[in-house]
């Protein structure tokens, strides 16, 4: 039906027709400190292609680098490394006139329509500015119907690039046709063709000024994006968010780009308006054969509009492939976790939400190996720990995560001084952490006493419970206030949460309950932390308990017939596939 559809259909059979190829792209932000500190690795080596006429979705949590990636593609950020091929040319190397010329082909629509329009300018001026910058229209001329050497004089000039010429002149006869995008009536153009034996001279005269053409173009754009012509002289203040976003779209389309980065174009809008803008974007894509990179964090929007989706995490693309397929059957653990976060309106559905522990690591100090290793629910365990019970393993992972988080936190000067002086800081308290992270166990005699105390408290005999506890547990053993502990214990029992009451006492008076083969390692790490050497502790834990996920960057493995790829070690033959492990987790 439309040109775009046709393009897409033909590509299925023929080879792909890529508009954009991104290879090993990295965009780092220098932190700007005087001392050379670590750069922020916003985009840390991504590869993907965008086919002509398709919409590639880019999703991920906030801060994963998707906006930076989009901005790098339109050269609002400089790439640190890698290449972005646009029609086969590496645009990261462009500069000066070449860059300016290329900017016509790639435009961006921003997220916040409040901030993306200069509200001291009228809507007309805003949309017209790109046209002014590029001195639009080119008034370039294609002369067809002759093999002779052609010269063009007058108001036009000979078309020199691949873009469609504004005016086409047929040589025998001098018939004129003006391209649709240029609001120039044919009767306002006159042409004079003089032919000699070896050459053709076409003299063109246009009796409408360029600035008039631009203004007419702006008015057409206004109607194209669903606004009215008379909005030309209004100011952005006079419009709603949805209308402002339409203005932003009109500005992006003014120069007739091939490729548009849509940076969360509907996130700032009312839900009622979102659908309208999305439909507008789809219509425009059909009409002008546009190629979109659609950045979003709203997965349902992405599913609605995108042909293919790339899932991003911490500067890496975790999974990329056909949209429907990816949503139906995610292969990568991160994609799985992300999709499970989509709220399901069906209350009977027993789909389990995967809650990831912790927060994404700092892009300034990403983990070694797989970027998702710190939070992955199906992380590969070293084979020697395969038999370890789930609780202990979780505890070890959690301890590593906590130490990692602590290394990220900024320490103020006073805190550093307190640390040096051996005083208490908000970073001390490793004992508390260990109590939280690992299960604790009492000896059988005390365990029995605990049960009796619970029974007593449950039966309303608080004094007896207090007595039992007082007999078996020495207040000197713990740094916590014993009376408070007992009070909390009793109120827990009264509230019916017996298990919490038990662990309250166990954590304080028990021994760390971990299998002997990991116990010494964990204790060594804890000793390192106690002596203030958390980095060594982290490294020690990684050496002892790390697996391939902590050591090597994964590869993109092809995971379906359509060429979807996933960035995970588990796709390697020697490991179980992520979904298998997820199933076993759920059971």
């Amino acid at each position, binding site marked *: 039906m439309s040109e775009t559809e046709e393009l897409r259909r033909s590509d299925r059979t023929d080879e792909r027709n890529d508009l954009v190829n991104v290879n090993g792209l990295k965009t780092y932000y220098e932190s*700007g400190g005087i001392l050379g500190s670590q750069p922020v690795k916003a985009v840390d080596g991504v590869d993907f292609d965008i086919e002509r006429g398709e919409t590639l979705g880019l999703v991920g949590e906030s801060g994963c680098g998707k906006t930076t990636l989009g*901005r790098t593609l*339109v*050269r*609002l950020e400089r790439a640190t490394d890698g290449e972005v091929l646009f029609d086969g040319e590496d645009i990261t190397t462009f500069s000066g006139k070449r*860059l*300016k010329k290329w*900017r*016509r082909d790639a*435009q*961006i629509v*921003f*997220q*916040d329509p*409040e*901030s*993306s*329009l*200069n*509200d*001291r*300018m*009228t809507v007309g001026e805003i949309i017209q*500015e*790109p046209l002014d*910058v*590029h001195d639009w229209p080119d008034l370039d001329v294609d002369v067809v119907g002759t093999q002779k050497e052609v010269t063009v004089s007058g108001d036009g000039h000979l078309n020199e690039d691949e873009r469609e010429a504004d005016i086409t002149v047929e040589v025998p006869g001098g018939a004129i046709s*003006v391209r*649709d995008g*240029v*609001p*120039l*009536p*044919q*009767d306002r153009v006159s042409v004079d063709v003089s032919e000699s034996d070896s050459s053709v001279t076409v003299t063109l005269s246009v009796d*409408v000024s360029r600035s*008039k053409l631009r*203004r*007419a173009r702006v*008015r*057409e754009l206004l109607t194209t994006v669903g606004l009215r*012509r008379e909005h*030309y*002289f*209004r*100011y*952005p*203040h*006079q419009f709603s968010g949805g209308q402002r976003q339409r203005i*932003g779209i009109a*500005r992006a389309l*003014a*120069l007739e780009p091939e490729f548009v980065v849509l940076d969360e174009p509907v996130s700032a809008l009312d839900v009622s308006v979102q659908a309208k803008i999305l439909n507008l974007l789809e219509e425009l894509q059909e009409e002008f054969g546009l190629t979109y990179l659609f950045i979003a964090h709203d997965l349902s929007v992405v599913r609605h509009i995108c042909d293919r989706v790339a899932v991003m995490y911490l500067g890496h693309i975790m999974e990329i492939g056909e949209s429907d397929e990816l949503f139906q059957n995610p292969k990568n653990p991160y994609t799985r976790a992300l999709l499970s976060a989509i709220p399901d309106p069906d209350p009977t559905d027993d789909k389990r939400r995967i809650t990831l522990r912790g927060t994404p690591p700092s892009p300034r100090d990403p983990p070694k190996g797989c970027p998702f290793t710190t939070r992955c629910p199906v992380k590969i365990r070293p084979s020697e720990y395969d038999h370890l019970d789930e609780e202990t393993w979780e505890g070890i992972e959690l301890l590593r995560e906590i130490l990692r988080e602590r290394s990220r936190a900024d320490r103020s000067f006073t805190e550093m001084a307190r640390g040096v002086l051996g005083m208490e800081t908000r970073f001390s308290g490793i004992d508390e952490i260990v109590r939280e992270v690992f299960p604790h166990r009492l000896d059988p005699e005390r365990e029995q006493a605990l049960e009796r105390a619970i029974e007593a408290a449950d039966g309303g005999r608080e004094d007896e419970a207090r007595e039992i506890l007082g007999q078996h547990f020495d207040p000197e053993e713990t740094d916590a206030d014993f009376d408070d502990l007992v009070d909390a214990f009793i109120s827990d029992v009264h509230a019916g949460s017996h298990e919490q009451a038990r662990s309250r006492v166990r954590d304080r008076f028990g021994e760390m309950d971990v299998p002997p083969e990991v116990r010494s390692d964990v204790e060594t790490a804890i000793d390192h932390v106690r002596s203030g050497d958390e980095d060594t502790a982290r490294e020690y834990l990684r050496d002892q308990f790390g697996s391939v996920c902590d050591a090597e960057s994964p590869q993109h493995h092809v995971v379906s017939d359509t060429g979807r790829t996933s960035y995970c070690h588990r796709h390697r033959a020697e490991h179980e596939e992520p979904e298998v492990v997820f199933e076993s987790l759920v059971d």
Partner: protein
Amino acid sequence: MSSQHQFEEVPLRERLATNPRPALVWAVGLALLLLVELGAVISTLFGVFELVASVAIGAVSGAPQGIGPNSDATGAVVVSILNSIEQFGNTLPTLLSRSLIPNQGHQVASGAWEGTFLGLPPAYAWFFRVVLIYAYLFLLLWWAWFGYRTFVEHYRQADWTPRDDVVDRLRGHRWGQFGLVIVVLFVGLALFAPTISPTTFEQDIDRPYEFEVEYFDEETGTVETTTAGDANLVSSSQGTPAYNTGPLSYDEFGRFHPFGTMNLPGGDLFTFMAYGARVSLFIGVTAIAISGFIAAAFGLLTAYYKGFADLSVVVISDSIQAIPVLLLLILINVVFADHWLTSFYNGGLLLALAFGFLYWPGLWRAVRGPAFQVSEQEWVDAARSYGQRSTTTMRKHMLPYILGYLLVYGSLTIGGIIITTAALSFLNIGIGAPTPEWGRAVADGRSYVATESWHIALIPGILIVLVVTALNAFGDGIRDAIDPQSQGGEGAANEAAAAGGGG
């Protein structure tokens, strides 16, 4: 499709052509208003040109041409041409002039006045002229406002612009309007100094012994003649009832002194104040223009390029702000004592340049925050994404948002400059005699504050306070006008442009 393209845009020229009446009415009114003052307009305009040309030529050749003895030929010619045009302007008929409404005359034996306007007593004649001048000035301003209204009503294509809101808010701001009125009175005093004063600078201060004064001598019963210098000496205020001419009184020579006379060598205080206002305004505006320009340029550059550009300007401005202002000014005063720059306004121009150099860091710091905020707006990125030049981006997308700030801080800083200039004259290191400066009047009159002649120090002191307060009030008014918070929400950048105006 292409046949229905419309060119709805109508250029201003055509809009004027289709409905010329309102514009014509306004233009004719403006022409009439300017025509009646043609002489004054020309002489004032070319007086400024002459000053600028002299400074420019001085900067090129190292000595002020047309003033110093060894004049460079071309420079001298340029300056003398400008000077003769200025003189020619003075000869043109001007409605509000000393010659049309004279206030200098003398009594005759009958007690009637001769030489004054319609034979009125000099006080009334002078007052009449002052009222006319200010009526003219306010009419001119109102006409400018009327022109803006005409444009909005008949010719503007937008039915609303953000400026409308600013204007609306300013119209409801009484404190700011009070400031504006006082500032207009002050500017009027400076602009019309030669006309508004009871006597002239030349006659009263510059060359008093070359002008003669006719007066009615009651002892002999005849009209006698003396020099203005001698008359000034006799009528000067020296703190005793016998030797004092207070405000709103006549002296022994039948001359009216609205603010009284000065101490030895005498002279009219109002005249001194009027010409002093010129000097203050000149210094204030020049210094603010220089420092405002530097501050805006650096503000835009540092906000657009950030990083190293910002850091280097921070270091430079810190260095400048670390200089003790008073010591530097004393130093400049000594170093440039014989320099040609000192010859303008007895050091006034030098002072203005020094202030321009010293005050830009403060202004830059005031606009740096807002400029950074604007530079973070996505429309700046958008401009980059379609290849707009950096200079155009700064001018079009950032400058409008910091101009309001510059206006606010500029008006506050002008007040500071006026005070500092006065303080320096008070300390006798600023503008030397004979160029009138308000601070010197305060300095000269301070020993008479407790005497009959209190007016010498008190009136200039009060005027300084009033003008500086008015400038602050005006600045407040502008800040509130560009602050959308005072009237309900608007764009974020407007807030950005107004949020820091509290200092």
